[in-house]
């Protein structure tokens, strides 16, 4: 039985220091009246998709926020805003912080134009960063969002059968949601709400999973349309 009034944060973790910092920020969030929150941490998951499936199965919360351990939600009213977006249209299945309206044919979100916000984006834009639009008003429908924060109001299994690592599980989940007919939204973020203290990722197996992605979802490269 789904609890319509519950949010659950699902975090895969392998680093206690980062996890505790992430949880500290979660503890400061305002919880909308009548709602409760839950937290599920999956330690040393075999893959992100497997860990998220485990988390998904372990909670009855309607709203799930899949979060990297190094992503810190600093906007106190994040949950209120999230609820507002999901309530706007029941076809909205997924919300992210940064995304792309048109996923490039190679499946790499960062090769296309992105929108949303991230920590110090304004500063970087001033310094000449290109390819990212600061979304300070209005929501934007996108094809894919970055996996450091993915919020959902429906459950669709993560593809742990084919994504057994740490890459492209996010784009895959976006494709699954779109195949199921749901919309994916990046909401306005006039102020930066989430800090992603990301360590630059290991690119081991990156291409391997990119190829899997393109094979599984031919619509990305246009060959499936």
């Amino acid at each position: 039985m789904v609890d319509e009034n519950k949010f659950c944060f699902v975090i895969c973790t392998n680093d206690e220091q980062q996890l505790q910092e992430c949880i500290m920020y979660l503890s400061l969030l305002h919880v909308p009246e009548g709602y409760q929150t839950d937290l599920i941490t999956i330690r040393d998951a075999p893959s992100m998709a497997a860990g998220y499936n485990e988390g998904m199965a372990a909670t009855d919360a309607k709203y799930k926020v899949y979060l990297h351990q190094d992503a810190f939600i600093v906007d106190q009213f994040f949950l209120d805003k999230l609820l507002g977006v999901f309530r706007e249209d029941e076809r909205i299945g997924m919300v992210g912080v940064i995304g792309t309206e048109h996923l490039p044919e190679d499946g790499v979100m960062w090769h296309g134009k992105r929108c949303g916000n991230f920590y110090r984006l304004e500063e970087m834009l001033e310094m000449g960063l290109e390819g990212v639009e600061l979304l300070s008003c209005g929501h934007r429908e996108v094809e894919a969002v970055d996996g450091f924060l993915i919020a959902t109001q429906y459950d669709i299994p993560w593809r742990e059968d084919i994504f057994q690592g740490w890459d492209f599980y996010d784009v895959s989940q976006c494709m699954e949601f779109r195949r199921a007919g749901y919309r994916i939204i990046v909401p306005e973020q006039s102020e930066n709400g989430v800090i992603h203290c990301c360590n630059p990722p290991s690119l081991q197996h990156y291409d391997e999973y990119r190829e899997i992605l393109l094979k599984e979802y031919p619509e990305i490269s246009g060959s499936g349309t």
Partner: protein
Amino acid sequence: MRQRQQDQELSQLKEEINLRLAGSRDSSDIEELMLFLSESSLYQEMKRQDGQFSMLDSFLNIWLREKQRLPESAEDIFCQVSSLKDLAAKYRKILFCALRVENGVPQVYVDQALEWLENPGISGVAIGEIVVCETSKKEENLMHVAQGLKRRGQIPNAILLLQYANERYPGREKLLLEEADCWMQGRQWNRAYKLLTQIENPMAEIRDIMTRLQQVLENG
């Protein structure tokens, strides 16, 4: 194939760095590590892309600054760092403190993070470098952390941090006043006076303090 080979080389390089960090005892070991890294094309290529390498690079810059600032016997940034994992944990102590300050979390959490900075080998220089590199409201955050250190009785480290800040942002009244206040707490009237003279068009209140300091100095 090329990717796999590079991953393997990266792992080997990290193993080598870990060995060197585990065995480092004094400055000459860090100098040797720097030399080794300067000759590694892989390190040079990856130091902006790999998280552990970028933190190591930052530590090496901090270490060089510390050599100019800290007394020979002082614990430097590599104190109690025996691996890249230790290094990342130490880096994050400073980073997380800076982010807590920047994001205005409740004071109890700022205080908790300021306590992390009391660990061996976290100097005001290191704090300054990481605050400036990692946060947006740089000056404000430098000031806030320095005030926190001062409040916790960490005056020497607060001074180091403010010296860093005043070098980085010369002529800023608030930063100069804060450093002068630290020196006054240590009864270093001359140091305080010199700092106050750097303030352009000081307000009457500051001029008054300067006059009194001048009198103290003249009376020996």
